[in-house]
């Protein structure tokens, strides 16, 4: 009985959240327009209430999964009593309805954070930001309630559920969606700030400083989310692919690229009061790409490997949401952006210009991903051609822009503001450049093939990391070594964040290049007791046995990785079968190393009594994710910079008739 009650309460809380969101989207906006403090002050408590109500709904749904309440349709479709607890919980967002609820929960969380930490904002701006944020919440709460209600009941509850897709029963994937959604939805804050600023009709340095932490937070969550997804694909799909340029991956990558551009252009707004209207446009587009990602994943309009079981009706609903928010925001932008006059003047060669170039390269890279993702659709509609755009296109069309970005990055990072000379900046970088070229040449000479990919990757990595170190060294200024080292400790966290994030980018690029260039692979039939040589390793198949897991049965191979006659590691790749879903999965066994992974997969039994075995030596694989984590860490460092906390109260509340923010 209590069980039933909790579900109904959750459903009710969700409806209440919808109502609160409607009120919060309208009342503060009118209050800000008319200058009525009471109406504006409603926004903050409403944002908290909206978050708590959505949290309640989410908790109720989670509870239904935990106790396996099979009167809920969603639980039946995605859970099973035998499933381990972690996956019962992650099953909440392992499906369309539940993941939408998590999406909205993140959205209201960001809204509530803006209410809690936004005390320093001028009351009108704060009211408008929260109202716009709430308008987005109205759209998506409506979407959930009207097309994707997770609280639907079954008249005749079955005894057990259909289980979650076994591929999703994995720790990497359990945490991938929450991070990704925090990232996607975090960009809604940048959007809300942009639209609120357009309504207010002014953008200044303080605005740049307010919008940056939200963008930074969204970007770093996206970074972690994408890295987790890629890491999962690497070890779970059975052949070690880490990025497929699949529409759904692209859908998360496009907002990441635009968010990265926005991060950098917001710096120009904050420090130099220039690029204002461009920054506003980026903030709108970044969220637009988030919405488009949601549309792509859930409409099924573009075939993708990841899509949820999708439904055209939902697709149309999201398309309408996308059209209303993008159409509205861009119209407002067209009407108001002209009024955002820039103040800071800068020369052709300056830190500002370098950041403009950064923005252009990131935006064009994003555009390439965008057009490649949509091209099959466009070609079919306009040319009647059914064609595919896959990894080979993206590798060829996207990579040059990122290489260019990496080449200009260390120079741009140390250029002075306003007016600079490249020759002067290069004076500090010749050493690093020489080192990078030498490292690339050395790699070229040492490798067996003649591919340029690996050496270029190494050279860029050395260039980026060396450039970041140079930047830090320059920041310590002049003086004796001891004094400069002492000064390291007092550098702003944002400077450290910048250097760390840029180094992370270099490490990731080297990882990707190295893995793609220097991978070794072996496919063969091996009998128990046999061993064979792959690269500089000897692999032995010691035994193959049957094993039972909590909700699956498996065939498990016992294999040794031997180098120079010594066993380096013993690995147990599995081939699992989940009886409830009737779905098989491969569980590759990986010996993780600093310079390489040994990646073993066991296949089918062969007619002659042997087993199909696939062995990969994957150089630098872990560098890809290590670099991503370092990038995210750089984001965290930057986020913890003192000026974001102190400057939270930057613009004092307007004197007359203003409300105190509590």
């Amino acid at each position, binding site marked *: 009985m209590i069980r039933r009650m909790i579900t109904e309460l959750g459903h009710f809380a969700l409806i209440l959240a919808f109502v609160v969101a409607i009120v919060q989207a309208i009342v503060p906006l009118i209050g800000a327009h008319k200058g009525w403090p009471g109406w504006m002050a409603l926004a903050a408590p409403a944002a908290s209430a909206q978050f708590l109500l959505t949290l309640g709904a989410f908790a109720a749904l989670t509870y239904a999964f935990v106790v396996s309440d099979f009167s809920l349709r969603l639980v039946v479709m995605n859970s099973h009593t035998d499933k381990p607890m972690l996956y019962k919980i992650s099953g909440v967002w392992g499906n369309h309805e539940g993941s939408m609820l998590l999406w909205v929960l993140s959205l209201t969380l960001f809204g509530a954070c803006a209410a809690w930490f936004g005390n320093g904002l001028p009351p009108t701006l704060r009211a408008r930001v929260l109202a716009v944020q709430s308008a987005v919440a109205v759209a998506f709460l409506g979407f959930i309630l009207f097309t994707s209600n997770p609280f639907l009941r079954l008249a005749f509850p079955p005894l057990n559920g259909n289980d979650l897709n076994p591929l999703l029963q994995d720790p990497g994937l359990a945490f991938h969606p929450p991070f990704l959604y925090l990232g996607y939805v975090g960009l809604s804050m940048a959007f809300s700030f942009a639209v609120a600023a357009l309504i207010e009709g002014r953008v200044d340095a303080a605005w740049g400083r307010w919008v940056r932490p939200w963008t930074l937070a969204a970007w770093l969550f996206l970074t972690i989310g994408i890295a987790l997804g890629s890491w999962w694909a690497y070890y779970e799909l059975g*052949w070690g692919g880490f990025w497929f340029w699949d529409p759904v991956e692209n859908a998360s990558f496009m907002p990441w690229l635009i968010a990265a551009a926005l991060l950098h252009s917001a710096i120009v707004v904050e420090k130099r009061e220039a690029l204002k209207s461009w920054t506003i446009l980026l903030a709108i587009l970044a969220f637009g790409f988030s919405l488009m990602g949601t549309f792509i994943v859930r409409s099924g309009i573009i075939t993708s490997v990841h899509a949820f079981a999708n439904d055209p009706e939902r697709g149309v609903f999201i398309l309408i949401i996308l059209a209303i928010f993008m159409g509205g925001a861009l119209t407002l932008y067209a009407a108001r952006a002209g009024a955002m*006059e*820039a103040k800071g003047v*800068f020369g052709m060669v300056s830190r500002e210009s370098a950041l*403009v170039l950064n923005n252009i390269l990131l935006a064009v890279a994003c555009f390439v991903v965008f057009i490649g993702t949509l091209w099959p659709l466009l070609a079919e509609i306009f040319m009647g051609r059914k*064609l*595919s755009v896959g990894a080979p296109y993206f590798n*060829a069309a996207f990579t040059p822009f990122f290489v260019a970005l990496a080449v200009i990055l260390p120079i741009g990072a140390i250029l002075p503001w306003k007016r600079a000379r490249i020759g002067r900046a290069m004076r500090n970088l010749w050493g690093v450049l020489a080192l990078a070229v030498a490292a690339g040449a050395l790699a070229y000479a040492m490798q067996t093939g003649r591919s340029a990919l690996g050496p270029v990757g190494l050279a860029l990595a050395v260039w980026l990391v060396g450039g970041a170190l140079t930047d830090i060294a320059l920041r310590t200024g002049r003086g004796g070594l001891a004094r400069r080292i002492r000064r390291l400790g007092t550098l702003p966290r944002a400077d450290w964040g910048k250097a760390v994030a840029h180094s992370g980018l270099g490490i990731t690029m080297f990882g990707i290049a190295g893995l793609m260039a220097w991978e070794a692979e072996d496919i063969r039939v091996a009998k128990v007791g046999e061993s064979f040589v792959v690269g500089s390793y000897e692999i032995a198949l010691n035994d193959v046995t049957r094993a039972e897991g909590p909700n699956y049965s498996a065939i498990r191979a016992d294999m040794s990785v031997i180098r120079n006659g010594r066993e380096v590691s013993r690995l147990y790749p599995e081939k699992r079968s989940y009886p409830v879903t009737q779905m098989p*999965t*491969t569980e590759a066994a990986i010996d993780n190393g600093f310079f390489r992974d040994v990646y073993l997969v066991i296949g089918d039994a062969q007619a002659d009594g042997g087993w199909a075995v696939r062995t990969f030596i994957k150089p630098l694989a872990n560098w890809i994710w290590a670099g991503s984590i370092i990038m995210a860490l750089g984001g965290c460092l930057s986020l913890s910079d003192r000026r974001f906390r102190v400057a939270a109260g930057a613009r004092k509340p307007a004197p007359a008739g203003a409300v105190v923010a509590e």
Partner: protein
Amino acid sequence: MRRLILILCLLAGPVLAVQPDEVLDDPVLEARARELSKGLRCLVCRNESIDDSNAGLARDLRLLVRERLVAGDDDAAAIDFIVDRYGEYVLLKPTTTGGNLVLWVAGPVMLVLALGLSALYLRRRSRTEAAAGLTKAEEARLREIMKD
């Protein structure tokens, strides 16, 4: 149906993509076959190359590619052979013919355009004087903020 396709092809398998019995004895030929397979799409899958796919049809295509190579086709002829039978949908790297040219030049054109526009903007901007947008009090306040 969609779900079935998902289960059948992508969402992994106990079957390895490339089976040991498919591998050609000649390592050079095999390497070429692998390279070609990476550029061909598995027709029943969602966005997977036949080199990565476990689907039966992907295996058939892999065998077909190897057959053509063994028969003495060069890479282009082998690909043409497959495209003739399965359509250009099978190519993961779209051709540069006709309207597809747009897809290939879109990025570079956009880059040139963006560079040109921003150069124009910068030149114009560096000539115009900065206009005052803030009141005196706000300017003072801003300076104060920027100090920390």
